[in-house]
């Protein structure tokens, strides 16, 4: 019997689910190997019987906590899909503002209709087995993780810096172009796509294990960034990470 998979979403842009739908060359093969039983963005049928749950999005309100716990109970393996789910991602920018003020900025005197709490990654609510990083996730990484799980193997998630892949791509170093970058402390796996397309690494995949953050903050300050600017760079996607929040 084909393994049953569910794809779920919480607060986010649904770009990581869309990345799965954008596997145009591989989608039909993938559908031959697994049975997708729950994927609200793409299908009407829903089932609560699944072995692997891919979960996108950040947890930002009470109702989402219960829903996520239910998914965790039913799934044997829970995979965080993308930066919002894995590390909190861009939604954590909200946490640096007063939440009452935030609600009133957006909804004015009707703010009380809409509850919210500090954004948090899935692992702050339930145990997470694996994470696919990135904003959005790279297609290849999703396929590699899916393949490993189907073979009952541990997925190989890189634990080295984006700089390694950037060198392999033969890019000119972002720092040598007079810009600054979070590549030296950010987890690889994206094939350094942002420097390859002329931009800087914004740290969307979170930090490598044991990053030397203090040293990198110093490097950024030597390059003329103020303390506030350094913090702002780290917080763009990493506002929920230890050592940054």
């Amino acid at each position, binding site marked *: 019997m084909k393994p049953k998979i569910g794809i779920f979403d*919480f*607060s*986010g*842009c*649904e*770009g*990581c*689910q*869309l*990345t799965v*739908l*954008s596997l*145009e*060359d591989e*989608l*039909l093969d993938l*559908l031959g190997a697994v049975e*997708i039983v729950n*994927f*609200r*963005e*793409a*299908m*009407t*049928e*829903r089932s609560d019987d699944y072995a692997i749950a891919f979960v996108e999005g950040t947890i*930002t*309100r009470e109702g*989402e906590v219960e829903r996520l716990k239910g998914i965790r109970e039913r799934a044997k393996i829970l995979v965080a899909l993308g930066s919002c789910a894995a590390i909190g*991602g*861009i*939604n954590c*920018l*909200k946490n640096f*503002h007063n939440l009452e*003020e*935030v*609600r*009133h*900025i*957006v*909804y*004015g005197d*009707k703010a009380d*209709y*809409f509850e*919210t709490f500090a954004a948090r990654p899935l692992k702050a609510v339930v145990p997470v087995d694996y994470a696919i990083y990135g*904003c*959005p996730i790279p297609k290849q990484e999703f396929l590699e993780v899916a393949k490993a799980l189907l073979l009952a193997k541990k997925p190989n998630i890189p634990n080295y810096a984006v700089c390694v892949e950037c060198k392999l791509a033969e890019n000119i170093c972002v720092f040598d172009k007079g810009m600054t970058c979070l590549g030296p402390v950010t987890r690889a796996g994206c094939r350094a*796509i*942002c420097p*390859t*397309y*002329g*931009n800087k690494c*914004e740290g969307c995949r979170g930090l490598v294990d044991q990053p030397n953050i203090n040293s990198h903050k110093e490097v950024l300050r030597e390059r003329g960034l103020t303390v506030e*600017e350094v913090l*702002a760079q780290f917080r*763009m996607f990493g506002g929920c990470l230890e050592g940054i929040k």
Partner: protein
Amino acid sequence: MRDLTINIHHVTRVEGHGNIKVNIKNGVIEELNLEIVESPRFFEAMLRGRRWDEAAHITSRICGICAVGHTTTSLRATEAAFGLEPSEQTVLLRKLIFNGEMMQSHILHFYFLVAPDFFGMGSVIPLASSHPAVVQRALRLKKLANDVCAVVGGRHIHPISMVVNGFTRIPKPSELREMRQHLVDAWPDLQATVDLFSTLSIPDFERQTEYVSLTNTKEYAFYDGVIASGDGGTIPVSGYKDKIKESVVPHSTAKHASATRESYMVGALSRVNNNYEQLLPKAKEAARALGLKVPCYNPFMISIAQLVETIHCLEDSINIIDSLLSKGLKEEDTRVQIRAGTGVGACEVPRGTLYHEYTFDEQGLITAANLIIPTAQNVANIERDFRSIVPTLLDRPKEEIALTLEMLVRAYDPCISCSVHLLNVEFV
């Protein structure tokens, strides 16, 4: 007289979370709502204090489907605030990636989200076995559209190289030539798509409303224009707050919007209604083959209007590539002079007119932001359609009424994740 209760929790095959609630007692509508239950994400507040050059990358994350649309509109708002006029090459490249996103979003919608209803299926997955040629064609077209975006911006979802006043990487002529060939090769697939969709029986329902879109004297307006209403009159983009009134309702984290009437429509059908004459020849030909005559008052025809626009975008993309190649591509200086001020950007993204407005201080930090999202503009109109169509269906089985309402919501191609990021029109 009939009692009827319908409660559809999390409408499927739409982007984001919405519920349909119908409560009819004795033939009288007591409740008929499209509840938007997506968690609010508060982008307008999150933008405060961030740098001018981060706004596009942050707001891109509002929506994976229209990431290019948010990026472009954001860049245009910042450029308006700084008084910048990007180069002709920048504008052409932006229009090209914009076409790529328009095609990919429309193809995703009419093939993957809408078509299963017409085949009586719950998703595209069983279609892969019953109609493999259709699904393979849909995947080929979607990939082509994604590839257009990747050549220009690095990737479709959260494009990389689009920045204020230009691009961090200019595509190579060889990449554009290859892309041009792929676009030309796609005509038979689009023709087959037109043939398929001209056989579907679109529900027969009409309700005239106000059709709002950008319009432009030079071309079919996506990237640039003034705000036009099917009820007559135009106003500049910077005056958008005079046109659009927003209100908060308890059952929706997306605000409701109104203009001249109590609700209005944005998106492909509004654009085709307002700007039909400027569609390129092959698109007009497709409109005729598909039976789309303007003005069209049937919201179920939105998908057909999207198909017509897809054909327009393909033709336009070939023209843009020809123009870029004949002019020659070059690296450009994208440096800008920061200044304090406010700027508004507006573009026709796949689901309608998107507005971004930012205010910057002298350091180029954002002090206030306002975003008005197409789906939020359509929600009130969808509810008005509900009120108009439900009384005509009351003699039908409950399942059929529920399916029709779901199909109606789906026809609008709502992008609910996007729609819950609104700010009061009055700055606080």
